[in-house]
């Protein structure tokens, strides 16, 4: 018996009981739609995280000053001013696994242009920072070594700052004031988006490091930096670079055994890898929960197929008497079950995709529907049909033709 004929018979059987077929399918439709939507939401989240990982640059170690105790008050991590520009240079010079290092300072201030003003983060930066963070300018030029060396009063604007101060106008060459000091805008940075912590990375103004240390900071130690970004030469050398930095700084800061270091290092990629892993686990979990509904749908299929076999016992008897082999009958009912689940699967995929789109449109939650998840969902729905259709189909094929013919 050819497959086309089997398919035709199965389609006729499904058409005969349209409402029942639809209701049976509904379980699969909902299950597949849930799986597709959940996977879309989950992988959307991990996509965002991996974008954020890329946005901070690769193979990065962050060095921040340790806590200080000032008059009995412990100030918390990063409060001390223990890292200097000399540390940055030493890391670069003496750690063989380090590709680049960049010291930064950070302060919050009002930036004024004409009658517009905007409160933002002012970061002191050296040219290496933009290499490490893979952050080019979209117009103008970036901060150069000569700007740092000469403590030039120039600045780079993040997109958000540029938008808020200049609107559609071109900021390059214009003059802005930070803490009453006029700065020339030399460029605007490309859009970077959210940081893994959720802050807007484009809401920043960069000034040369030396300018920030000498002109903007009122610190009595103008050589200090707020944080050091260190880039290892490769991912494999990341741990080695971290320990090199640690031993160098211990030596420079005279940290001996038993003494608490006045700085700390953090491997950023590692932190984010953990975040990515947890979001992936989350999407797997969502998928697993959704596939429970698929199993429930499959049981519904089995139930209806059993009813159908009982109802059509006589038809099975006729077919057997006329010469249908057991496999013909088995295949016929299997085809029916798989057709049910596959049609349900396709509808579910469309519905799940639509659901994911609605979620991303109205809840501004990023979703990503991969070809992979569609393929998996499609074949999974087929597998549900095979799994739950097998028992009823075997029951049909195992009928005794005489009993089946006599069945009322």
């Amino acid at each position, binding site marked *: 018996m050819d497959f086309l004929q089997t398919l035709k018979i199965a389609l006729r059987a499904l058409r005969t009981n349209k409402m029942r077929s639809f209701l049976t399918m509904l379980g699969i439709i909902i299950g597949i739609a849930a799986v597709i939507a959940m996977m879309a939401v989950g992988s959307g989240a991990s996509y965002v995280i991996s974008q954020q990982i890329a946005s901070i640059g690769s193979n990065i170690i962050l060095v921040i000053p340790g806590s200080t105790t000032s008059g009995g008050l412990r100030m918390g991590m990063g409060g001390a001013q223990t890292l200097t520009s000399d540390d940055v240079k030493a890391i670069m010079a003496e750690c063989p696994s380090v590709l680049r290092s960049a010291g930064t300072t950070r302060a919050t201030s009002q930036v004024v242009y004409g009658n517009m003003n905007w409160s933002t983060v002012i970061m002191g930066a050296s040219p290496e920072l933009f290499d490490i963070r893979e952050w080019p300018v979209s117009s103008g030029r970036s901060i150069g070594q000569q700007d740092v060396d000469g403590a030039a009063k120039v600045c780079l604007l993040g997109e958000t700052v540029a938008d808020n101060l200049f609107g559609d106008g071109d900021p390059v060459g214009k003059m802005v004031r930070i803490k009453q000091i006029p700065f020339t805008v030399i460029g605007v940075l490309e859009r970077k988006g959210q940081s893994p912590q959720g802050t807007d990375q484009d809401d920043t103004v960069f000034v040369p490091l030396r300018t920030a240390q000498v002109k903007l900071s009122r610190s009595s130690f103008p050589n200090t930096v707020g944080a050091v970004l260190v880039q290892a030469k490769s991912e494999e050398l990341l741990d080695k670079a971290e320990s090199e930095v640690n031993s160098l700084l211990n030596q420079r800061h005279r940290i001996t055994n038993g003494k608490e270091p006045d700085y700390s290092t953090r491997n950023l990629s590692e932190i984010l890898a953990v975040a990515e892993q947890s979001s992936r686990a989350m999407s797997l979990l969502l998928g697993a929960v959704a596939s429970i509904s698929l199993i429930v749908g499959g049981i519904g299929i089995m139930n209806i197929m059993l009813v159908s076999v009982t109802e059509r016992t006589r038809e099975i008897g006729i077919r057997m008497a006329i*010469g249908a082999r057991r496999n013909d009958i088995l295949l016929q009912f299997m085809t029916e079950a798989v057709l049910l689940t596959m049609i349900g699967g396709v509808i579910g995929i469309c519905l799940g995709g639509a659901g994911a789109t609605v979620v991303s449109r109205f809840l501004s939650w990023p979703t990503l529907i991969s070809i992979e998840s569609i393929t998996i969902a499609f074949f999974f729905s087929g597998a549900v049909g095979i799994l739950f259709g097998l028992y009823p189909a075997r029951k049909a094929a195992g009928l005794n033709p005489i009993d089946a013919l006599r069945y009322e």
Partner: protein
Amino acid sequence: MGIVISLNDIHRVFIMGGQRFEALKGVSFSVAEGEFVAIMGASGSGKSTCMNILGCLDPPTAGEYLLDGLNVGGMDPDQLAAVRNRKLGFVFQGFNLLARTPAVENVELPLVYAGLHARERRAMAMEALQQVGLAGKENNHSSQLSGGQQQRVAIARALVNKPAVILADEPTGNLDSTTSDEIMGLFTDLNRRGITIIMVTHEADVAAYAGRRITFKDGEIIGDTR
């Protein structure tokens, strides 16, 4: 003329709820090509059991059954299905057509399982419908046909694979007397064209159409008249 069916000392024992019931107690007869045989008997006489064995739907407990020279004993269900498909045509009391299926597709059904191509199937089915006088009704569903017409479709289905024997189980049981006569006329006609027919009935006037009458009682043949 060749022998189409040969039963040799056929026994059929049912065991139900621990009780042994012998439905056939050593039945032997043979049917030659072109015969029209009526199997008669009261209910419980073993005629239906005999028919099931003849139809390869039920294996005998003991004895030998040769169908068109083929020993049917010891075949597995799939081999029996193939034998039914190629050598036998069934006509049932309740017509047993597929609902919501056009007449021509009902007639095609044995050919579907025989693995014939669609075009070939259609041509053979149309020819069979013509033979039973239903040309032009091929697209009607069974609900759109009268009882007599439905039985004609069933006969066409039994004919279509050019079987060695047509087995008819009370073919007029659900029909009024006029339609019964028509159907029996059709059987007689087919038999005259050389088709072997074995028919189970308990009505003497229906059996009268057959050239040979075998009578069963209590699992044994008590009469075989020509």
